[in-house]
């Protein structure tokens, strides 16, 4: 059985999977950030080998926990919302489905004609708008294709809602909890091993900006005194 490039590429087809694409890209960004922060901690010359044995694994564990929690939760929300939408669509009568599909098709055509981003590179040509009308509307009613597209886009839109909800919960709630609590334990661990880390206040994160902020009074903290991981060290 030979390798089929076309089928392989199609696995990554983003159509109907916008929520998943958003989830994967955000998780990839978080992964890169976690990895770079942990590598930065591992490569930091100011940190002793003994401290690295503690900091680096903590960074890895915190990073994995944070990303895994975010990914699992968001995937669950996306799947649930897609399921709910499928159920609701199945409960619609054919007339209701046609009416809603027509509403969406007309809104789409209207947006293409007068939309905010309908300029420059993204300007819709008259041929394009004509093609849209022909594909989506049969007279004043949605075509079969438009109905099929409506079902797909509604589920896809619901998956985007899920991705957004997951990103908000993950970024604004899960990340601070995981980061701040683990930072506390990492800090206490460091202090136990080396009392000179008992300075007030400490910075519960590491990022390249650390070097710069050392200039300010309250933020005068040694490079060693950091938490190895946080996705905030690098914003992806």
């Amino acid at each position, binding site marked *: 059985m030979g390798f089929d490039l076309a089928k392989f590429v199609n696995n990554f087809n983003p159509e109907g999977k*916008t929520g998943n694409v958003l989830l994967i*890209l955000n998780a990839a960004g978080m992964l890169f950030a976690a990895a770079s922060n942990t590598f930065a901690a591992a490569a930091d010359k100011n940190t002793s080998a003994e401290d690295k044995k503690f900091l680096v694994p903590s960074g890895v564990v915190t990073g994995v926990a944070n990303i895994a929690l975010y990914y699992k939760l968001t995937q669950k929300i996306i799947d649930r919302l897609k399921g709910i*939408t499928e159920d609701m669509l199945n409960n619609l009568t054919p007339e209701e489905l046609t009416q809603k599909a027509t*509403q969406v098709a007309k809104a789409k055509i209207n947006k293409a004609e007068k939309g905010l981003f309908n300029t420059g590179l993204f300007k819709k040509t008259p041929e394009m708008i004509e*093609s849209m009308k022909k594909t989506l509307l049969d007279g004043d009613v949605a075509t079969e294709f438009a109905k099929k597209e409506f079902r797909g886009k509604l589920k896809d839109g619901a998956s985007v809602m899920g991705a957004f909800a997951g990103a908000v919960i993950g970024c*604004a709630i899960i990340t601070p909890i995981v980061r701040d609590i683990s930072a506390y334990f990492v800090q206490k661990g460091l202090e136990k091993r080396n009392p000179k880390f008992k300075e*007030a206040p*400490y910075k519960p994160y590491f990022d390249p900006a650390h070097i710069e902020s050392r200039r300010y009074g309250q933020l005068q903290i040694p490079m060693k005194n950091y938490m190895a991981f946080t996705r905030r060290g690098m914003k992806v």
Partner: protein
Amino acid sequence: MKINSVQQQNFKGSITNKVGKFIVDHPVEVAGLAGCSVIAQKIVMSGSEAVIGPVMDIGIGKAITKITKEKDGRTNQSSKVQAIRTFAQSVGGTIVGVGVRAVCITGAVAACMKIGSKAGSKIGEVLNPVTEKLTKENDLYKYTDKMSAWGKAIGGALATLVMLVTNFIIDAPFINFINKKVSEKVLKKPTVENTQQQNDTQNAKEAK
């Protein structure tokens, strides 16, 4: 126990119904989200992070101080520093992140959509092997829609890679700048001396 389980199920069912009803009652808005790129996600995510994140940081700091009965209040103090940092990173990260994403996605979508018809047909065949063979000529709308979706996904992935570099070159100094300005305003140009003073005051309070 049984009642709880029934109540839970009713609660879940009611939430599910409300969400489902919202989706079906707002078909234009929800279906419109289908075309979203990582730019919208970044704005939603970082916008909420800028508002909720600092509150969370301070709340967690207070909770840790209370639970561990920490005497010197350092965790509480550092949570304020972290809260300012979170805000600065959300704001700075959003401005730079949205800019980088916008450039990458615009470039990728334009490349995918404006690609020559001959090359486009070839790519269309590769990208859509299972269903129909789309070209600009046989269905301009479907072809453009498909290419736009691919452009957004490719552009988003490209932006993630580009940001590995811009994070250090642009984000870090920019976030530092915001952090410095906000710290000066909120912490009133903190120095080692007044930090010590704050801690002494806190310790004295706790000793009482």
